[in-house]
């Protein structure tokens, strides 16, 4: 079986990313409302912005789709003058790359809760690395920086880890994921019975 992405994989992945683009519009106000409080509470819901990647790769189960999904979401932001523009492009790219690395670490063999939560942490790490350069977070008071990092990792693990798995499980129940997923060994075993 070819490891390269087919047109249908690409199209499905990009469309998943765009759906998240719409969901982000619902989520955006939640994050903005929490922001002025200052105690980094908004970091708890930051993980929502990592979600497109893990969900895309959990649905398609093909190498590269997490990176593609995050890039597509970021590209959409750039082309349609979304909040942040070119900034979101770099953040999306870095987050997609780190999500992808988590799945690569398990050689694209495992698509369970553990890997997905790890991929969420990866995306959080990627965003923190960019924040060092772009937002000078190391120049924050120690306790504030600690809150920022802890809250972001908790949020990433819960939203783009646990919630992503729950969401894809629910999608499995609708039967739509079997359209795009590659045939697994279980499917062949059914034929042998």
């Amino acid at each position, binding site marked *: 079986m070819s490891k390269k992405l087919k047109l249908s994989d690409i199209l499905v992945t990009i469309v998943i990313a765009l759906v998240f683009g719409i969901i982000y519009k619902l989520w955006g106000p939640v994050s903005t409302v929490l922001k002025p409080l200052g105690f980094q509470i908004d970091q708890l819901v930051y993980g929502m912005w990592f979600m497109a990647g893990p969900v895309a790769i959990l649905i398609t189960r093909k190498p590269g789709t997490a990176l593609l999904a995050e890039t597509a979401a970021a590209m959409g932001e750039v082309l349609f003058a979304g*909040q942040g523009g070119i900034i979101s492009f770099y953040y999306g790219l870095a987050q997609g790359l780190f999500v992808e690395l988590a799945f690569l670490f398990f050689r694209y063999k495992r698509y369970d809760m553990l890997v997905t939560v790890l991929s969420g942490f990866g995306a959080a790490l990627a965003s923190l690395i960019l924040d060092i350069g*772009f937002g000078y977070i190391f120049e924050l008071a120690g306790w504030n920086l600690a809150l920022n990092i802890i809250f972001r990792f908790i949020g990433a693990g819960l939203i783009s880890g646990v919630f992503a798995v729950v969401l894809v499980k629910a999608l499995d129940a609708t039967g739509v*994921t079997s359209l795009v997923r590659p045939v697994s060994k279980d499917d062949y075993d059914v034929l042998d019975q």
Partner: protein
Amino acid sequence: MDRNWIIRSTWFYNVNPALKFGVIAALFIVGLFIHNLNTMIWLTGCFFVSYLLFTGLAKMISFWLLFTAFILAILSSTTMIFFGKGDHVLFQWHFLIISEESLARGLHIGLRTFLYTVIGMLFATTTRPVQFFYSLMQQIKCPPKYAYGFLAAFRMLPIMYEEFYTIRAAMKVRGMDRKKGIKARYTKIKRYAIALLSQSIRRAQRTAVAMEAKRFSETSGRTYYYIMTYSRYDLVFIITIAGLVAAAFWLSVAFPFTPYTNVLE
């Protein structure tokens, strides 16, 4: 960008889209190495003026987009202003300590956010998505399945929005949007996500099958409906952007507004 919002065409439209994107992406990297508040102020000023000169966007829409960018920039600077490190304390209230250094650094971050939002808007409002993806295929040799994948997917956006409104109306009619709070938000997001995702995945899959049935393939020697090339506008564009950056650097030395030449110190 929504085509109905574009009311005029400037020479920025004639610049090769892939090259334009490359230059703007490079500008972001340059910006990461600017720690001088004066340079950031002048740079933001220069690009803000060039945005006003070269955008094709209708004035009212432009105003609201800039206003949102401005609010976002302020919000992104507050954490650093209130909780940043610094020795020369200006104001203190419990945990909240505003120092000269944190104020300068916060302003720097806010300006940076605003600057790149404006640069992003300058790109978005002067680039046609279709031409951008054709340019990616021809200038950067991006595989056609990705470029056309993007184009086909973007074409589905209006359908997705329509579906979104349908779901919202359906939920309203059943009284499902009355609950408030985080848990209600969670169930709401989940319901929308499942409905939108399942429909969109089916549609994307069907479209891909249809495209391949009509002989969409990866063969080499593909011909293009839109031929994208480089032109003299590209040279003018590069010179303009380089000139703006150089001008900002020179102005920040000649006419510094603030004494903060390195916000990291």
